[in-house]
């Protein structure tokens, strides 16, 4: 059903994933040809392409706004004020003062990464600590979990179902964590 490199012609989802690259002209010749073939037979997808192109056109032709008339005057006032305060510190702690300012500038960039970094670190530690721990002796019910990877994949699936009103996480829980005593019966 899936062919390497092929887009199944009725597969709007796959076409959908290729549209951004298509519009940006970044698809290979083969992919372009295949997508275009799909577009000729699919009104929904060709409409999407048209809309995407229009959206990009709108973005590239955004109304240009201008700053207020007294922008320059205000800016110079601010710069003068900063200069003046810098002068005040110059004799005593000039270097520190500027370093602080640079630090502030730098920190604006660095701060956003910090909590993410910490979170990733914690997540990594949790993952690592988990890998040896998950393997062993689960109860008969959960015995069929060869490794941590499968275990997380199964949890991920429950989460997937849970977010969907038409999914039924309670039913999935029974399916993926079957009681081993019933397994043999269910699979003759």
């Amino acid at each position, binding site marked *: *059903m*899936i062919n*390497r*490199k092929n887009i*199944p012609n009725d*597969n*709007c*989802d*796959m076409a*959908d*994933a*290729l549209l951004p*690259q298509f519009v940006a002209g970044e698809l290979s010749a083969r*992919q372009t040809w295949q997508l275009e073939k799909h577009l000729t*037979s*699919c009104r*929904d997808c060709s409409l999407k392409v048209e809309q995407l192109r229009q959206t990009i056109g709108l973005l590239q032709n955004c109304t240009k706004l201008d700053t207020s008339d007294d922008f320059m005057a205000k800016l110079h006032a601010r710069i003068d004020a900063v200069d003046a305060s810098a002068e005040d510190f110059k004799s005593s702690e000039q270097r520190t003062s500027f370093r602080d300012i640079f630090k502030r500038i730098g920190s604006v960039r660095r701060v956003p990464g910090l909590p993410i970094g910490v979170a990733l670190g914690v*997540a990594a530690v*949790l*993952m690592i600590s*988990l890998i040896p721990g998950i393997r062993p002796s689960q*109860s008969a*019910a*959960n015995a*069929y979990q*060869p*490794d941590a*990877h*499968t275990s*997380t*994949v*199964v*949890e*991920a*699936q429950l*989460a*997937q*179902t*849970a*977010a*969907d*009103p*038409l*999914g*039924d996480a*309670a*039913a*999935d*829980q*029974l*399916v*993926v*964590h*079957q009681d081993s005593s*019933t*397994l043999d*019966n*269910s*699979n*003759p």
Partner: protein
Amino acid sequence: MINIYLLPKGSKIKYALGALAIVVCTATSVVSAKAQLGRTFKRAHKPAAHASRPLRGYGYRPSKSKASQQVYSDPRAVNLLLQTFTSHAFYKGVQHTQVGSQISVQNVMGGPQGRLRLDYISPPRFAGDVMVTAPKTFLHYISTKQRTYVTHWPAGKRMRIATRLRTLIRNGKLLVTQTGWQEIAGVNCTIVRIARNVAGVPGGVTQRQVWIDPANGIILRNERWSPAGIQSVSYFTSIDMGGASGVTMRDFTVASLPANSHRQRIINQSTRVLSLEAAEQSAGIHVLLPAYIPAGYHINGIWTVHHGKLTSVLMRYSAGVNHFSIFEHQVLRRGSSYPHPPLRPRAGVQTWRQEADGTTIAITYIGSLAPSDQITMERSFR
């Protein structure tokens, strides 16, 4: 069936729904679909500019290229179904779930934006476990392990699921019809049937039947179907709604779970890739593909999933609202106890190993295909 939190943020991917098998044509059609051509209906919250117009574009304008069948969704049923995605009601009740001969009972609490909490009463192996679904998180507390699995996903996931559903209905790939009324746990419900539109099968092949409380948009009974019949069912035996339920937002937070549990974050990074070659390069394996795919299924997308130092390739196949997933990764440890290609299908999850280009690949199937389809597919990996 797996997966939204696996996907890159903001990706325009069609998210998935449930978890059952579907096969195809040989189905007994359960209820005949009623065509409701041209009927107009009003949407609950319309932007002003649209106020005087009937909403178009649901089921009664199927894509012309898929001409086959003149069957259409019922706009009222579609509307009711979509209400379940936006329900704001608090409720609390007892729910029974049955899959084959297995039964579980849970205390259920529900709230706005799909908040749902299941406290397991039985069977004994699940008793004390808790599952909590909130707009950006899924928590699964397992009492015997004192562990809480935490899955995060981008905001707006339910919206994407709804959009996906709407697209399938609009394209005429799914048929949504109202099939009757029935009282569940003292609440008058409308029965809505969701079927995959299959050429030659009048009314399509049933995938879900849901009993919806039209006043609150709550699903009180959820049946998942395969062509062979009902695969699983969950239904309330009692329910209180609104203030009487005593449910609050706090019931859906991690703070409401046992404080001493160890928290583990589930798969946290994945990337959608556009070709098998890209996936293979990323995972460092030669991906094996099933030569046999059950009728009606097509590949929905390929992702690489990063878990520790391991990169797996995830391939997701779907038919209507049903899905199954295949994960493949390189077996890093010698002597890992993965079994050889399966002789019998194991329902739900099955992992086995196969050799490819001198490396050992572990393949995991997750889904609810019919056993015969599952084993045929599993043994067709090349």
